[in-house]
């Protein structure tokens, strides 16, 4: 009996002495840390995805506390809601950002883009891209091995077996950009979600000249520049035989989508399906009116010129 008693007494005393020592050491070597770091970390999503550009949520909090403002710190996963909380803790102003989403810029499905060879190597887009241009005649499009799917921590992207292309789940995507970084062909772009989820984009990255692009894929952007000439908002950037819609300037009129001869311009989130004929008629009317107005102006200018002479 006394053996048990002695054991308890010795261990209890030892524990007490060590506790005091630990307390004193902790006090002596205390590292001062901003308590706001912990607070911020608590309101962060905690996915440690790296979408903000920092190593994880704590690294984000650490830099946010030290930074003079929140311009360099934005959590794409938490979005504006989380950023409001972070700003409240730090007493900073937060600039609200439009929510973003990953968009796949390739529509080379199995029918449109025939396979001209067969890949039997290691199933990784990066490995495949280093070996050759891909199993279709398009050297810019999706390779279909699913590196983006593996990169996504939120289960928001999956390969569609029917098309062989990745599909982004709008609800789950946090726009962290991991898929865009993983893609060796850079076909995934992080774009603004758009008002009520309405957005337009060119679903192609092919920079070949028209005939070559069309031969490789029926859905390719052939660089015809019809969209560029149609757009009245200057939202279309045209470079290297490829159109790009600038989301900052796009007014979502869908005229480019109606005019695109290959259907390379995609839209989503719109309440009504596009009435192509109506839009085309509208554009024709506008063009004839503009031509008439131009003629009238010229006609009006001519007598003046004569008078001047």
């Amino acid at each position, binding site marked *: 009996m006394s053996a048990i008693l002695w054991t308890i007494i010795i261990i209890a005393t030892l524990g007490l002495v060590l506790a005091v020592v630990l307390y004193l050491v902790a006090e002596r070597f205390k590292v001062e840390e901003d308590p706001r770091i912990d607070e911020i970390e608590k309101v962060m999503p905690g996915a440690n995805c790296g979408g903000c550009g920092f190593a994880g949520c704590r690294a984000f909090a650490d830099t946010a506390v030290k930074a003079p403002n929140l311009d360099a710190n934005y959590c794409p996963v938490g979005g504006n809601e989380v950023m409001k909380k972070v700003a409240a803790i730090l007493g900073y102003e937060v600039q609200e950002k439009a929510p973003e989403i990953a968009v796949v810029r390739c529509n080379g499905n199995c029918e449109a883009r025939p396979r001209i060879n067969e890949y039997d190597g*290691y199933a990784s887009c990066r*490995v495949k891209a*280093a*070996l*050759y*241009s891909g199993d279709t005649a398009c*050297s810019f499009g999706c390779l279909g091995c699913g590196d983006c799917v593996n990169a996504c921590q939120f289960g928001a992207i999956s390969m569609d077996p029917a098309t062989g292309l990745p599909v982004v789940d709008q609800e789950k995507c946090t726009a962290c950009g991991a898929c865009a970084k993983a893609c060796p062909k850079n076909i995934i772009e992080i774009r603004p979600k758009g008002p009520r989820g309405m957005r337009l984009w060119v679903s192609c990255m092919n920079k070949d000249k028209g005939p070559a692009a069309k031969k490789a894929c029926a859905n390719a952007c052939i660089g015809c520049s019809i969209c560029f000439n149609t757009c009245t908002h200057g939202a279309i950037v045209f470079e290297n035989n490829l159109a790009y819609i600038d989301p900052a300037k796009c007014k979502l009129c869908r005229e480019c989508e109606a005019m695109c001869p290959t259907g390379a311009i995609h839209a989503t989130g719109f309440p009504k399906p596009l009435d192509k004929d109506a839009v085309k008629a509208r554009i024709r009317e506008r063009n004839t009116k503009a031509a008439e107005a131009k003629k009238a102006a010229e006609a009006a200018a001519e007598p003046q010129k004569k008078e001047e002479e």
Partner: protein
Amino acid sequence: MSNRTFSIGGVHPADNKISRECKIETLPIPETVYIHLGQHIGAPAKPVVAVGDKVKVGQVLAEPGGFVSAYIHSSVSGTVKSIAPRADLAGNPQMCIEIAVEGDEWLEGIDTSDTVITDFPDEASVCLEKIKAAGIVGLGGATFPTHVKLSPPPGKKCDMLIINGCECEPYLTSDFRTLLEKGEQVAIGTAILKHILGVDKATIAIEDNKPEAIKHMKEVLANLRKVSTRFAGICVMSLMKKYPEGGEKQLIDAVMHRQVASGGLPIDVGAVIQNVATALAVYDAVQKNKPIVDNSVTVTGECFPRQANLLVRVGTPLRFIIDYLGGVPENAVKVISGGPMMGRAIANLDAATLKGTSALLFLTREQTVRGKESNCIRCGKCAEACPMGLEPFLLNRLSRAGGMLDALEANAVQDCIECGCCLYSCPANIPLLDVIRQSKVQVMGIMRARAAAATAAKK
């Protein structure tokens, strides 16, 4: 007698040199050739001809685009049709000069006869200039400009020239046939290279699965030594057959018993290595004023009915070569440019040959099928096989974990020579080389960026 070989790693794949008895025959000239501007390691060449120009065989089409770069010559006579991007062997667009062939008119001053000229100029600089002007690049596969390799940096001294006649890749026979049929020219080319480098010793290294070539070269050298003292110091060495003996660092180890340090070059241990085909090209350039306009290509494979070693003009479309030999066999599923160990599958048969194209290999589905990948059992076979002394199983794990570039560099992923011994020996069918090659590219990119930043900081 046990022959020399390299000390660590290596594998013994089946020889399969089924085209070894086929003499080198000259392929007819196609109607159109496509000459790539990037046929060598380094900066692509800059074109000096315009669309519509008439060119002759051997005329300069493009000038070097930088220090490490080479001249490119027309391999045919005809009219330049276009200078535009065209899909290469891997299907990626590359700048190409398209020439429509008209006759076969050679540039004046090029000796096209078969007479062997043994006497070569005394001044090393004259020889070197001729080599540079002929656009000679390493024809063993790396296509590194030869004139750069023959000008060792100041302070480095060359002790031995090694002519690489190993041809350790299975199936390939073009170097073997070159040694048998043009042994004299190769020996004279070797003497020229030896003279330029100013070394006393040169070794023609041949694996012991080619006894005819070893015997022939010994006879050729014995005869040449009677003609001139310039051929003294060149010997033939028989090496034990083991893959990848033809790798630069492995060959130095086998021949000289010296090891090149990680990140080092052969010249650091006093060696310069040139391929047999390069030695022949050097002979042609110095003795005959003939630039690289053709090279020998092995066309082979068990399923291919007509084995051949062909002398092909640079820029010949692959389809032309294959059609000449009877077309693609029905049961062939893969065509490889180069040997089965290091060659790359060709994605585009409309592409044209390059200076460095050494073989077209046809494989059937049974030959190309990959086993199902299973887990690594840490048997260490890959580490045993690696001729660079790396640990492929570890590099594989680090690569797949992602973001472990520091650890990969510490484990010398940048030393990988991509020989494929690890993948060949893995019982679990893990695609070790595919994975490791990726991280090697990333690590080397970082190392280059760091070196560039260091030189910028010095300035």
